[in-house]
């Protein structure tokens, strides 16, 4: 049951194409799980269409169509309509094998020859580089940084060990998370698969994965977190994010 969604303002920025690339990736993964937001988005797009088609019309240059048609005739064969539509925008799941449990997912990412493609959103599968290594952040937290083609957010897969707790921290910038597998909780709620979680500066939390299963999340972080325990004062100045 999904109970945390991107707000209307964020969805409308997705609908008009102005939201940050990294957030768009997270929203896309949320949309794969959330029928409610898919239909919201569709409605926002219908508004856009209504406004486009009722807007002012300006005659195009007379040669515009002929020029375009010439370009179409000059397209290389493999760029033809069939090639594009069969290359297809998004297969339901790519062939990159990833297991269901995040522990297994990690193994699968390292050795990409297992063949049990399981329920991760297509876009995540596309972003995972099979050669990349998971980093151990703390006792219960490991992460795999992703290269997404933008320079504002550090985007990463994060895995919290079942029952494990992440150190209490505040946020120095926005932090967005979509739960991909398992669930975690903090003082503000429980977050399950598909949930879209937004944390801002001042929201101190201590995410804890549920007992029965590791929790795998996709996250986008604008600034390094600020650890709130006493040791944090020593560590915080050295924390960095690596947007990519």
């Amino acid at each position: 049951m999904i109970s945390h969604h991107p707000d209307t303002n964020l969805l409308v920025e997705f609908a008009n194409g102005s939201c940050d690339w990294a957030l768009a990736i997270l929203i896309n993964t949320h949309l794969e799980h959330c029928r409610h937001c898919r239909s919201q988005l569709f409605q926002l797009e219908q508004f856009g269409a209504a406004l486009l088609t009722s807007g002012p019309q300006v005659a195009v240059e007379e040669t515009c169509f002929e020029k375009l048609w010439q370009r179409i005739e000059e397209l290389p064969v493999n760029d033809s309509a069939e090639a594009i539509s069969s290359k297809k925008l998004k297969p339901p799941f790519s062939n990159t094998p990833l297991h269901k449990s995040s522990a297994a997912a990690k193994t699968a990412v390292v050795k990409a020859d297992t063949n049990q493609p399981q329920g991760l959103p297509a876009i995540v599968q596309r972003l995972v580089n099979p050669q990349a290594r998971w980093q151990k952040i703390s006792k219960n937290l490991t992460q795999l940084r992703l290269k997404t083609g933008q320079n504002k957010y550090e985007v990463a897969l994060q895995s919290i060990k079942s029952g494990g707790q992440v150190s209490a921290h505040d946020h120095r910038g926005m932090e967005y998370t979509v739960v991909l597998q398992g669930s975690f909780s903090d003082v503000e709620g429980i977050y399950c698969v598909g949930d879209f979680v937004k944390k801002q500066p001042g929201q101190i939390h201590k995410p804890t994965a549920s007992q029965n299963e590791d929790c795998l999340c996709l996250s986008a972080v604008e600034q390094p977190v600020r650890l709130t325990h006493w040791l944090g004062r020593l560590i915080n100045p050295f924390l960095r994010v690596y947007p990519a």
Partner: protein
Amino acid sequence: MPPDSPTTALSPLIRSDHLSQLLIKVGNHDRSAFAELFRHYGPLIKGFAIQHANTRFPIEGADELVQEVMLKVWLKAKSFEPSKASANTWVFTVMRNCRIDLLRRSQRRYFESSDIEVDDIWDENDDHSPFTFLHQGRQQQQIAQGFEQLPAEQKQALTFVYMHGKSHAEIAEETGLPLGTVKSRVRMGLKKLNSLFKPGEGL
């Protein structure tokens, strides 16, 4: 291709279905259907482009944008499914994706290493829940009329959103309004438009 204002004689309802038919034909490489679609959408896309012209999309580039969008329409028409979206909504999403793509290409030095493309994130062919789908141009006309009747400040905010493709932060910067005000105007305007969708009508 002399423009002969092909759309004025048709009711919005027929027109909307007719546009879908044309798109399906374009999917089968029908040049004359494509020419007709071009006559219909070309001037709208150009009108749109001129409205939100800026340094990144100068007015002189409006015809190029029309070409880019219509090229994508030609290439992707095969994936259009009339049961999932109206032609207008589909073309709107193709145009939006085209704009994102052009913007990203203009900032290439940051982004060339990306493995994913615009269409991977913004999928025009997503499987929307069917109950929200409104075939008719009639609904779209109502929305457009409802839009005209919005309070000026909500209308302005939504114009920035949809016509200019701006984020809330950009709108706040351009208008000098607090971000929170921009966000709430957008939400209120959308809420009013939402109320124009009557469940059960136009399905």
